[in-house]
């Protein structure tokens, strides 16, 4: 423990400082702070899920800029499957399934066909926009609401319980569990070691007897399910409708979150919440009306803050070494 703290001094200091500040604000501005935290977390949920898709893909050596498209199709498929079948479960499964299929598409084209990963992602996004717009149907309704619940006893913790564990939903809970799960899996399991090796230095993995192509195929495909969850969350949980273009750039923001999180799941979780919080601050500035800043300018706050924070603090985070490159064995 002591050694871990020594090794991660900056992380520990930053985390403690952030947590202290968060509680201070919570107790000092009790009229608005809780709602801002809730809003921040609500904003962060799809970003976390989507950023994890990016993390898994890039840790395996595959850039996924098609997350936006994966989410869009999943939101579409989930919503309409639920509407037509009359079952939320069917919708959720359809959404996750569509994420899986698109993950498979990205995996197959980039790994098997060695298509440029950026191009594959761009293609995926265009197709997703086209299809969901083309086959959009107005006037459909979800058969019901996604369940909300409290996670006792965590929900009793001041602030944290209120924000993360009460009145929460499956996907909100999943976002936390997935971030922890992917972190543990990536850094503490056999799969994770192999995945990181494949993403950093595939020929080292290959010569160690690891099937690089297969691992990449599996990872990128399965990560699609998380993109599916993010999409389903948007159309079935955070709102109850599907609209064209409703992902509204969240897939790309997730990539930014992934990079800000230095390709680490828990850090990405922290960054998504941070980003969500700045968003809440931005709309609070607008709503508060005390200072008269045009909403267009307050709206840019999260983006300005992100850039400034990165410029001051970030320094050089390093992408997985082999990201973007198809693995070609010696003789091909």
């Amino acid at each position, binding site marked *: 423990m002591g050694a871990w703290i020594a090794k991660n001094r900056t992380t520990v200091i930053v985390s403690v400082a952030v947590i202290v500040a968060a509680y201070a604000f919570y107790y000092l501005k009790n009229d608005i702070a809780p709602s801002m935290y809730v809003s921040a977390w609500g904003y962060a949920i799809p970003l976390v899920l989507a950023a994890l898709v990016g993390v898994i893909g890039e840790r395996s050596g595959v850039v996924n800029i098609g997350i936006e498209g994966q989410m869009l199709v999943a939101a579409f498929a989930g919503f309409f499957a639920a509407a037509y079948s009359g079952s939320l479960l069917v919708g959720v499964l359809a959404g996750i399934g569509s994420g899986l299929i698109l993950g498979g598409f990205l995996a197959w084209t980039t790994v098997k066909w060695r*298509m440029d990963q950026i191009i594959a992602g761009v293609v995926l996004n265009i197709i997703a926009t086209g299809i969901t717009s083309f086959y959009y149907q107005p006037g459909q309704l979800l058969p019901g609401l996604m369940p909300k619940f409290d996670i006792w006893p965590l929900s009793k913790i001041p602030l944290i319980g209120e924000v993360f564990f009460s009145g929460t939903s499956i996907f909100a809970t999943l976002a936390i569990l997935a971030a922890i799960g992917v972190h543990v899996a990536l850094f503490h399991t056999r799969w994770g070691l192999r995945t990181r090796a494949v993403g950093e230095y595939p020929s080292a993995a290959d010569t160690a007897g690891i099937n690089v192509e297969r691992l990449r195929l599996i990872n990128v495909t399965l990560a699609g399910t998380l993109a599916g969850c993010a999409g389903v969350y948007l159309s079935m949980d955070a709102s109850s409708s599907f609209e064209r273009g409703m992902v509204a750039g969240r897939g790309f923001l997730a990539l930014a979150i992934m990079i800000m999180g230095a390709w680490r799941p828990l850090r990405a979780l922290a960054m998504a919440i941070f980003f969500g919080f700045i968003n809440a601050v931005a709309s609070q500035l607008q709503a508060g009306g005390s200072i008269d800043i045009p909403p267009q*300018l307050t709206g840019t706050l999260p*983006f300005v803050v992100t850039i400034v924070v990165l410029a001051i603090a970030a320094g050089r985070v390093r992408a997985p070494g082999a990201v973007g490159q198809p693995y070609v064995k010696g003789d091909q």
Partner: protein
Amino acid sequence: MSETPTVADQAAAPPPSSGGTSGDKKPAQPLAYLLTHQSGVVILVALAIALLVGAALIRYQGVSPWYAYETIIREALLVDGGLTRTLQKTAPLVLTGLAVVIPLRVGLFNIGGQGQLIFGAMFGAWVAYAAGGLGFLGALCGMVAGMVAGAFIGWIAGVLKATRGVHEVITTIMLNYIAAGVTWWLVTGPLQAEGSKTSGIPQTELIPDAARVGAVAGIPIGFVIALALAIACWWMLSRTTLGFKLNTVGANKHAARYAGININRIIALSMVFGGGLAGLAGALEAAGTLHRFEPAIGGTLGFDGITIALLARANPLATIPAALLVGILRTGAPGLQFATGIAPEVVDLLLAIILLMVSIPVLGKWIFRSRADKVAAASTSWGN
């Protein structure tokens, strides 16, 4: 067979030796290769497959594919003024394509074309209006202003990348939002046209006639500028020492440093170039199409630029046919809906399929039973 360089090999970012010194081989001329080389055939086959898939899609809508394609071609090229409109649409696409190509050569992925363009359009429109009294000179000022504004946005991303190591993908995404917000604020506030203040319409003053960029004999001047810049970019990249520096940084940063190249400056410069080109695209849209700034001026030009750069495999000259293809499809789409009722999104699907087909490296293998074709490596720059 695999010994001869293919289009892809030549165009891959960065290209081997940027053409040039060849005594025994032809220099990299994508158009020539397109016509004479194996990859040219691969591209044609890819296009044909894409059109067939598109045909199936259109058929499924209950419309004759033949009629649909004919309509697009007719609307985009044959009807009165169609060609002019197509070229008008192509011009900014060439530029936003180049705005992605140049940083890509240095190993940077500029997805900020949209923001750079919007910013360029805003300031281009404003300066052209303010300097409208100068006539032609005013138009020129507008274009320079647009370029500078776009370049400024690009420069921010470039400098942060070079000096602070902030990933350009983050900054360019963020700057897209910031540019949209700032221009929106300007156009509803300080720079809003006097006449629009009561109605609240977000638009700037109209650029006076004399300072607009029109067309000569049906050829938009903007298109000529875009063509000239595409050729200039190609020349710069393949023939000049500056191009050599850009390519070298993209090919091997360490070697570039060793060779005495100031990497940071080149990285920032490439983004300045990219931003400037996108900004110019915006200024041209303002001066040539809408004659003022409106927030919707950018359309999807910035993001189309990515598609075009990838279609062109990071080759400046190839952005011309790639942009023309997009221009034709987009110009023909409304006419297609008018004639057949097919929603214009079909064109995006078509474009996606074309990009997919053209970019499948194994397609060449399937056709020629030869080694897999190498495709421009956009994503190999991602990790840097």
